[in-house]
């Protein structure tokens, strides 16, 4: 073996050794650079919505409902360890913030990454009012399915982790809006936890979908498909 070949082999061995040390660090840097959105998003969130910590925080396994990675159009609970307050309002805020910020993958998001919970109120009768930034409305993908998943993920996450919440009202920037993103009606309350129902009234419901007389439809008129 000539001296030149020996030198070439020695250079290659040195290059491999250096590469072996340098490659993992390079890989980490590339991975960090490939997630700029996450980093920007986190930085924005830290400014706009700092993490909520209360004296009563205890680390618990919380059930958060995100989109299922396998069943399209379905939600799936994921257990994550979160410091949660004993106070129902603070606890609800912590959960909704986790729902926005900690999705296991972008595909499993149910709320836009830039959405912000501006305020959360809880009334004595269990009615919760969640006031979100405009982003919830402007960046939720338009559609009945996607809008319903957004609202359901909030309602089911609260139901699984906050005993006091019975019904949910969603506001956008302090205002009641007609729809979330063009489809889902936000004018009413969403059920969170089933309430004990009073006994049904004695009068029977219209059989077979029979439409009662109403101010909108003349009595006797509905139910006949015109030609």
């Amino acid at each position, binding site marked *: 073996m000539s001296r030149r070949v020996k030198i070439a082999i020695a250079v290659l061995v040195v290059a491999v050794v250096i590469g072996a040390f340098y490659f993992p660090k390079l890989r980490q840097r590339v991975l960090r650079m490939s997630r700029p959105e996450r980093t920007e998003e986190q930085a924005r969130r830290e400014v706009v919505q700092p993490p909520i910590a209360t004296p009563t925080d205890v680390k618990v396994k919380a059930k958060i409902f995100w989109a299922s990675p396998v069943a*399209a*159009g379905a939600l799936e609970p994921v257990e994550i360890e979160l410091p949660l307050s004993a106070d129902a309002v603070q606890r609800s805020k912590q959960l909704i913030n986790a729902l926005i910020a900690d999705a296991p993958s972008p595909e499993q998001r149910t709320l836009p990454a830039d959405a912000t919970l501006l305020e959360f109120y809880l009334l004595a009768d269990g009615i919760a009012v969640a006031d979100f930034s405009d982003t919830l409305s402007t960046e939720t*993908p*338009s*559609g*009945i*399915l*996607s809008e*319903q998943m957004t609202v359901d993920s909030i309602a089911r996450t609260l139901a699984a982790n906050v005993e006091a919440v019975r*019904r949910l009202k969603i506001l956008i920037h302090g205002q009641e809006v*007609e*729809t979330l993103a*063009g*489809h*889902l*009606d936000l*004018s*009413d*309350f*969403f*059920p969170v936890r089933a309430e004990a129902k009073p006994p049904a*009234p004695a*009068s*029977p*419901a*219209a*059989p*077979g*979908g*029979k*439409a*009662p*007389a*109403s*101010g*909108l*439809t*003349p*009595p*006797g*008129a*509905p*139910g*006949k*498909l*015109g*030609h």
Partner: protein
Amino acid sequence: MVVLDAAHGGADAGAHGATGVVESEVVLSLARLARFELERQGLRVVMTRQGNENPSFDERSATANAQRGAIFISLHVSSTGPAGTARVYSVAMRSGALSAAQPSLLPWDQAQEPYAESSRRLAELVQIQLAQKFRGSPEVPSAAPVRQLRTVAAPAIAIEFSSVAVQDRSQLDAMGPALAEAVARAVATFRPFYEEGAK
């Protein structure tokens, strides 16, 4: 009488796909095709919009509420969901829903509530038909508080196709004939049920 509602329109284009598929355009063309098929079956059809205009939710509802014995079908295309599938929705009952004992004057905002059961039945019939034609579609319909349905005083459903994320709009247009046939069959099955309920 069938009232076909092509959702969105005008400045409100609805869902947008990355390849330029626009919900308001797709649903209008699906509604036109469904109209043709339903009229061929002898049914009278009214559309809530003929072109690229955008009537309000209440104006669309008023179109249906002005008809006697109408059924209302609102057509949508989603942003998400498995491509080539269709989901049918009837309205989810609101809190403080009307009971049969309510007085005869019906608040506009609660116009759909007395029709909730017949809407659910219509949704079942349409979903069964669509599940047979579009593989991967659910076999049972969903209930959701769809704003458009709330003010319709007639059996009312929304059909949402997936999705504007398709590569080519022709994939959605190709669903039109099967949609029209499915709706026509479901309406034919629903008709005696609806007429019986009115007696």
